[in-house]
């Protein structure tokens, strides 16, 4: 029901409470229950009484201030019960209460840049953003729904639908650590679009430093308005108005001398002024190199090519600068892992040249070559993560002594082995290809020639990945109970070994069959995904600070008969993922067997520096892009209304309080005042 002055009465039946007005008048017309007092005579009181109405049960309505105040209170309460709502000045002033329940979606930026300390309060951007989010949660009331989307490399969603949930959500938000990494705002907006509740007033609040990129089309089609609340960026909090970061640190073996490690360091300057900063290289706690570098402003960078100290297992590059984000002023790199977490590969080949080279470049790989006619003891094979047979094939006895979870790569297995053949293809040409198979990721076989290849007969448990007219060229599937990939053609008879596709193909095969080594470094917030060694039941990851986390390694199912190569492979490859990489530093990984005994360990480094996240400057287009987000047509009208009953009730209570003060305060004063005394009347007698 719409009324004057832009008021809407959401509950007109509340006007029924106006019956309280005659009730109040009736109440005031009643004589209050008087105190009974004995007196010696009534004659003088009767003479003093002019108003006989007091002798009746009711009297005329007294036009007293008390009655008027009570009538005003009843009127205010009755008006409040009608739930008057307005979209005018009251709503803008914030004195009113929202009429509709709200769905508050808080997009909390947890990216690496939010670790910058450039807020007026001296806290990090993330802490300031978290405080703002907590304040928003405090404003919610019963019936509202709150969703917090914590943005980092990964997106975490927290939700609460009632008052208790709001408290729990606030507590959880206070304890949560920033995930770090790059904030995927587009992914978060996509998720938000699915989270919108049509029945509620959806409000999206992005609390961020603004150093985000957004797809304007995605924002425009979100279906809810987005409010951008920026934090940080206060100038003058640090000497440098901007950030200097080590955005890249990598290593590779020096050409011609694999024992020497070449380091590539990139230092970027995101401040508006050019800076000259000293960059140091530390290995084993000793400063090995120092160089002053002048970097251009506005995102300019300088690359340093250094040689790592010989024998260094870990190096740290640091830039000495006082900027808002100290996390990215240093970066570390693990040059040499512990030996027991390297990728141990046994290559059984008489001509291992190409295969050995392709296998050796795998990160952490240590390749052992053995001729095909040599002995192959079962005890020795248990130490290898991958066994490669080149132009050879294990016989049934050898298969029996191999470990149950051994991974096999058979390259051009000769006929007569455990794989049945039916003739040969002289010059096979590629006819079929399973493009989505992980083995072919990044593999382009066009132009590749294949030499004479046996026609292998594959059973139902095996999957052809690359096929020719007469039979498969590459296929995968269990062999003797072991994971196996078979490359049917002979690389030595093919031109593939002269193409970059060959090491990629071998790397894909190794990635699918063998445990992956720990990376030398992981970007901040990026999850660590790797496959522990065979026999590992638990991978224990210890962060730089805090308690270690045990990750269970799913046991492989040798009897898995799934025909989906992707899922079958994933199930059998026993990957573990560790996502809590939001803190820069060195993480230690220990693999444990089922009995809890350590099988080995390794380390990886999480570096904060990133070409995007280290740039603390806000995206100037972000606000404009988010401003295009509009609410749906249904939510718009209700969203602007403000309920006015709280100020009305407050006014009624204020009047009551004033009435109490007026009535009760003088009573105390009266109680303290001395009682009046009777004045003796003049005595007259006859003699006067």
């Amino acid at each position, binding site marked *: 029901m719409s009324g004057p002055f832009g008021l809407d009465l959401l509950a007109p039946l509340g006007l029924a409470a106006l019956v309280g007005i005659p009730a109040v008048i009736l109440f005031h017309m009643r*004589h*209050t229950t*008087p*105190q*009974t*007092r*004995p*007196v*010696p*005579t*009534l*004659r*003088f*009181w*009767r*003479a*003093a*009484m*002019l108003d006989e109405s*007091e*002798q009746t049960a009711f009297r005329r309505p007294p036009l007293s201030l008390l009655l008027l105040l009570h009538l005003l209170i009843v009127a205010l309460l009755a008006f409040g019960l009608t739930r008057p709502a307005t979209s005018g000045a009251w709503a803008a002033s914030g004195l009113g209460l929202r009429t509709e329940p709200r769905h508050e979606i808080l997009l909390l930026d947890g990216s690496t840049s939010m670790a910058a300390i450039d807020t007026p309060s001296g806290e990090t951007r993330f802490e300031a953003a978290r405080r703002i989010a907590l304040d928003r949660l405090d404003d919610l009331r019963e019936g509202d729904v709150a969703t917090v989307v914590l943005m980092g490399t990964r997106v975490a969603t927290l939700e609460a639908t009632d008052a208790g949930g709001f408290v729990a959500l606030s507590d959880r938000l206070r304890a949560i650590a920033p995930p770090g990494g790059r904030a995927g705002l587009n992914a978060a907006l996509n998720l938000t679009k699915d989270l919108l509740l049509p029945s509620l007033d959806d409000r999206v609040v992005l609390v961020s430093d603004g150093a985000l990129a957004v797809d304007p089309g995605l924002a425009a089609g979100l279906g809810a308005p987005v409010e951008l609340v920026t934090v940080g960026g206060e100038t003058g909090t640090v000497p440098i108005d901007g950030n200097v970061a080590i955005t890249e640190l990598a290593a590779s073996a020096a050409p011609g001398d694999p024992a020497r490690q070449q380091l590539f360091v990139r230092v970027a300057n995101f401040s508006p002024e050019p800076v000259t900063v000293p960059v140091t290289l530390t290995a084993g706690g000793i400063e090995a190199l120092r160089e002053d570098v002048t970097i251009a402003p506005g995102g300019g960078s300088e690359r340093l090519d250094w040689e790592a100290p010989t024998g260094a297992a870990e190096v740290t590059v640091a830039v000495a600068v006082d900027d808002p984000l100290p996390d990215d002023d240093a970066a570390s790199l693990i040059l040499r892992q512990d030996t027991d977490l390297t990728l141990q590969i046994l290559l059984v080949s008489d001509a291992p040249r190409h295969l050995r080279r392709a296998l050796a470049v795998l990160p952490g790989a240590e390749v052992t070559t053995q001729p095909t006619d040599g002995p192959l003891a079962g005890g020795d094979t248990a130490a290898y993560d991958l066994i490669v047979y080149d132009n050879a094939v294990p016989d049934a006895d050898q298969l029996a002594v191999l470990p149950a979870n051994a991974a096999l790569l058979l390259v051009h297995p000769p006929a007569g082995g455990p794989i049945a053949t039916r003739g040969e293809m002289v010059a096979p040409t590629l006819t079929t290809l399973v493009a989505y198979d992980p083995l072919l990721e990044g593999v382009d076989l066009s132009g590749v020639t294949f030499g004479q290849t046996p026609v292998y007969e594959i059973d139902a448990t095996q999957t052809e990945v690359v096929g020719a007219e007469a039979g498969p060229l590459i296929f995968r599937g269990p062999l003797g109970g072991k994971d196996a990939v078979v490359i049917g053609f002979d690389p030595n008879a093919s031109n593939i070994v002269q193409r970059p596709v060959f090491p990629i193909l071998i790397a894909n095969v190794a990635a699918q069959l063998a445990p992956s080594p720990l990376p030398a470094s992981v970007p901040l917030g990026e999850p660590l995904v790797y496959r522990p060694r065979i026999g590992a039941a638990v991978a224990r990851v210890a962060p730089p600070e805090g308690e270690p986390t045990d990750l269970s390694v799913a046991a492989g199912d040798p009897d898995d008969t799934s025909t989906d190569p992707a899922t079958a492979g994933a199930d059998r490859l026993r990957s573990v993922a560790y996502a809590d990489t939001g803190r820069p530093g060195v993480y230690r990984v220990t693999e444990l067997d089922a009995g809890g005994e350590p099988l080995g360990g390794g380390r990886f480094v999480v570096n904060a520096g990133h070409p995007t996240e280290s740039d603390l400057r806000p995206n100037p287009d972000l606000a404009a892009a988010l401003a295009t987000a509009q609410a749906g047509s249904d939510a718009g009208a209700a969203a602007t209304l403000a309920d006015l009953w709280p100020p009305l009730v407050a006014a009624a209570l204020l009047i009551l309080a004033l009435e109490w003060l*007026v*009535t*009760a*305060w*003088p*009573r105390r*004063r*009266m109680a303290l005042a001395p*009682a*009046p*005394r*009777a*004045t*003796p*009347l003049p*005595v*007259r*007698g*006859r*003699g006067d």
Partner: protein
Amino acid sequence: MRLSLPSPIRRPAFLPGRTGADAPVPARTVGDALFDEELLGRLRRLVLMSQKTIAQGLAGEHRSRRRGSSPEFADFKSYSQGDDFRRIDWNTYARLDGLFVRLSEVTTEFNVHLLLDASNSMDWRGDDRGPTKFAYARRLAGALGYVSLWRFDRVVLAPFGAELAPRFGPAQGRAQAVPLLRHLETLAPLGQTDLPAILDAYARVRRRPGLVILVSDLLSGEPADLGGPLRELRARGWQATVVHVVDPAELLGAPMTGVGPGGRPAPSELIEVESGEKLRLTPTDPVLSRYRAAIETWLAELDAVCAAEGTTYLRLQTDWPVETLVLQMLHERGVVG
């Protein structure tokens, strides 16, 4: 301090003192004994005064209009037939050659009648810390009676409610002081009263006039109704004194009512103690002003009526001490000397 009382009279309850040899003297509180020895000592020095001489009665300590044979010379008169020859003053006959009879003054006793209002309206007080009007009136009547008995006057104490209650006396002599006070202590309120009728009836049935002292709150009837009985008393030779006992709360009015929140007047239901009639009112300032005006008018009417009938009118408030202020006022008004 002990009161000297003739043995074997037991120490009465109206006197403060010890119930045992070692009992401490209790503090004076409401409802304590009517008299103490200090007051009695003051009373013993007083004498009840009459505004006119009395021609009747037996010999006493008060001057009389009667002439007799006492040694106190009063006057001469010419001899007339029938006069006692023995009273002829022969020395005067020798000087003046005329017969003159020597007259002597005869002192007579007083008949003191204490009419004590024992109606329910007297059993009221506006302040719990003070005495009721009835207690104050008993104390005053006791004082006057004690003075009279101490001077060998004949005393009658007549409490009355709707009717005259059993009276004390006539009694005479100091030995009757204690029984008088004991009798006063046993008195209780007697309900309603009709003061003019009581006065009228009391004067009609007594042949020998005397001094009548009415102790009352005078709330029975209008002031004009009191004029008739007082006139009747005077006509019959009585000397009347009206002692009007009032409570200070009666004069103010406000203490009789309630006070609401904020010190504002609260509605009260007043119940008349004698009739039980009720009246609801809110003691606002105008109401209280009219009440006080009515009280003042009433008091002025009482004063005027008493003055018109030659009656001594004395108004006493219950917060005035009997020992000092009241006795002084009685003395100033010629009630006691």
